[in-house]
């Protein structure tokens, strides 16, 4: 067993040291996932917006007994719905806000004029909210502008409603004094505050499952699927590449040197096989951890994750060893990497995983490849499927792996014994 471990650990050391392993096995899947992630709008951009620092200068001075609508604006901007997007700092005056923008403490400043409440609650008058922003900022001012526009629209609508109500009252012979006007505005404001901001009761967005659409979650789900597909593709690729070391060692003479040492052939092959398994384990663990940290992918329950990882590792290692056992020398490996791995990866749906309703024959072809079963298994894992639901693809993958190992071992044993 010591000799088996010695061979396996030597292979792992050589794999980790190779640029190929770092580049193809670790960086490529992460890079591709990152590119897809960027294409779907995930990642960095949303992080930048969530860090917006805004200064608010509330100069609003309503008449005594009237509501302070400037304070209402501040409360809305500090509401739960916006707290992840902007952080509002109430500052004393406009100069202080401008200085903060110059010092890059704030991305923008919102200035509420002294007559704001008076104009909104009064009839026929106008005023303006002002946004001052750092010219170097390209996104934050527009975000703030949209939020404030939504708030201002709310106030304008309220004012319009009150104006119309007063007109109608007067047309019917009623009297609407300043006190009546103020009371109506107060009630509308109170009702607005009671509702969750920016949530319209008349409109809701639903996903195909009938649940409330959460764009962020959908993107996260797509990124998770892509990352899983890339991980499966490159794990199978690495499985073949690591197994190639058997052919390389045969050509370089180090395999023959092992055969003339007092080490049985079965131990040498076991060591080589174990080396492939350990290398793939390291690769998957790194990818799982990094993708969790970078893309915030939740890979599911640990128990189910372990099962999916084991199935992926053994099937990828078995497939790689099987392919290499069919080859005569390393000159033929180009066909494997350029052709077989890519074609089986495509048939296995690794590049079309997020596309729904694929043609029926594609689904059939997918089931012929270990990559297709691996993708099904990992998709179930990501969807939070039960152990029972995962059992079938898991069993198929493990069964395939056993067959692959058996054939590869038989072919290699025969190959090395007949010389």
């Amino acid at each position, binding site marked *: 067993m*010591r*000799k088996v471990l*010695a*061979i396996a650990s*030597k292979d792992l*050391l*050589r794999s980790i*040291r*190779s640029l190929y392993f770092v580049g193809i096995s670790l960086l490529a899947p992460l890079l591709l996932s990152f590119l897809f992630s960027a294409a779907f709008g995930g990642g960095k951009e949303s992080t930048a917006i969530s860090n917006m620092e805004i200064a608010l200068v509330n100069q609003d001075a309503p008449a005594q007994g009237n509501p302070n609508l400037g304070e209402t604006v501040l409360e809305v901007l500090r509401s739960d719905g916006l707290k992840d997007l902007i952080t509002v700092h109430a500052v004393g005056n406009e100069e202080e806000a401008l200085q903060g923008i110059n010092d890059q403490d704030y991305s923008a400043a919102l200035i509420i004029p002294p007559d704001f409440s008076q104009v909104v609650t009064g009839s026929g008058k106008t005023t303006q909210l002002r946004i001052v922003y750092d010219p170097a900022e390209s996104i934050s001012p527009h975000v703030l502008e949209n939020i404030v526009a939504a708030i201002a629209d709310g106030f304008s609508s309220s004012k319009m409603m009150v104006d119309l109500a007063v007109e109608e009252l007067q047309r019917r012979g009623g009297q609407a004094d300043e006190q009546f006007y103020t009371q109506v505005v107060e009630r509308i404001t109170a009702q607005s505050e009671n509702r969750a901001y920016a949530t319209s009761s008349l409109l809701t967005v639903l996903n195909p499952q009938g649940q409330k659409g959460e764009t962020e979650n959908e993107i996260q789900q797509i990124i998770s699927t892509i990352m899983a597909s890339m991980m499966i593709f490159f794990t199978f690729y690495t499985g073949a590449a690591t197994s190639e070391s058997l052919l390389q060692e045969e050509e*370089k*003479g*180090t395999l*023959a*040197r*092992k*055969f*003339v*040492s*007092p*080490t*049985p052939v079965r131990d040498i092959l076991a060591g080589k096989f174990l080396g492939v398994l350990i290398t793939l384990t390291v690769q998957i663990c790194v990818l799982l951890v990094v993708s969790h940290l970078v893309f915030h992918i939740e890979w599911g329950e640990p128990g189910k994750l372990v099962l999916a990882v084991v199935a992926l590792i053994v099937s990828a290692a078995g497939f790689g060893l099987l392919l290499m056992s069919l080859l005569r020398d390393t000159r033929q490996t180009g066909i494997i990497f350029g052709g077989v791995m890519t074609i089986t990866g495509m048939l296995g749906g690794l590049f079309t995983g997020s596309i729904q309703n694929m043609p029926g024959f594609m689904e059939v072809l997918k089931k012929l490849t270990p990559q297709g079963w691996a993708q099904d298994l990992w998709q179930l894992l990501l969807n939070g499927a039960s152990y029972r639901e995962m059992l079938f693809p898991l069993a198929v993958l493990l069964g395939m792996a056993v067959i692959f190992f058996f054939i590869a071992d038989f072919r290699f044993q025969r190959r090395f*014994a007949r*010389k």
Partner: protein
Amino acid sequence: MENAVEVKGLKKFYKDVKAVNGVDFSIQSGEIFSLLGPNGAGKTTTINVLTGLFPPNAGDALIFGHSIKKEPLKAKALMGVVPQEIALYEDLSARENLVFWGKLYGLRGKQLQKRVDEVLELIGLRDRQRQRISKYSGGMKRRVNIGIALLHLPKLVIMDEPTVGIDPQSRRHILDNVLQLNKQGMTVLYTTHYMEEAQELSSHIAIMDQGRIVANGTHAELVKLVGEQDRVELALSQDGGKVLKEWKKVKGVSKVDQEGEKIVLLVNDSNAVLPELFKIANQQNARIASIAIHEPNLETVFLHLTGKALRD
């Protein structure tokens, strides 16, 4: 004395090619035995069968009494094999290579580290042990290639043309190592197509050609096969018709031939004959323009036995 190696009727065929076609020889414990022959003679195939890499089609080899067919692991444990091609991991350092191969020979722990240190010292690479093999020169790689075979202090070291393609300094280092190992009691089986190496190192030499051993013995025994005569090559400054006639009459000269510009004489003792040859040339007013003396060697033996040169 105990036989370290005993080869009996060994045959190895590749389809129609009889790479080794009935080889018998034995090596006594503690000696350096050379298999000498040109490329393609079957030396490496013999070694491959002997080390258990390929099974023989017929015959067997015993390593200190253990059959390579019946007890391969026991036989292999007693051998250290230096393959003809450098078989190292280029992306590992010399020390990492030695540690790995030491583990395959059953060494571990402090014993392994101690032997690795000793071997690094022996092959003169202690200072560069942490450097990757890919950074080494051909000679340095050859030295590590040999070092691996010595890690477990084998009773028999088998070296398959270990000096092919290396600089004279590394070659000298390797030959000195072989002699040093032998002094420590190791039996050495050495294959080469360099006659000088076989002559310098070996107590016994087997000459191989076309899968068979054509001669086997000590250097002196082999030389006797061609009659121990010196070959003297001369060139005269003018036509030497009369001189040749007179030289044939000299005692100790058995043969005189004109080969183009050269005159070739086979003589029993060149030191005794040369003064008489010069005297006759003077008497006939002929001047000897050049002279070369070849004492009988393995090259001559090989030529005599096979009709071709060792490096053909």
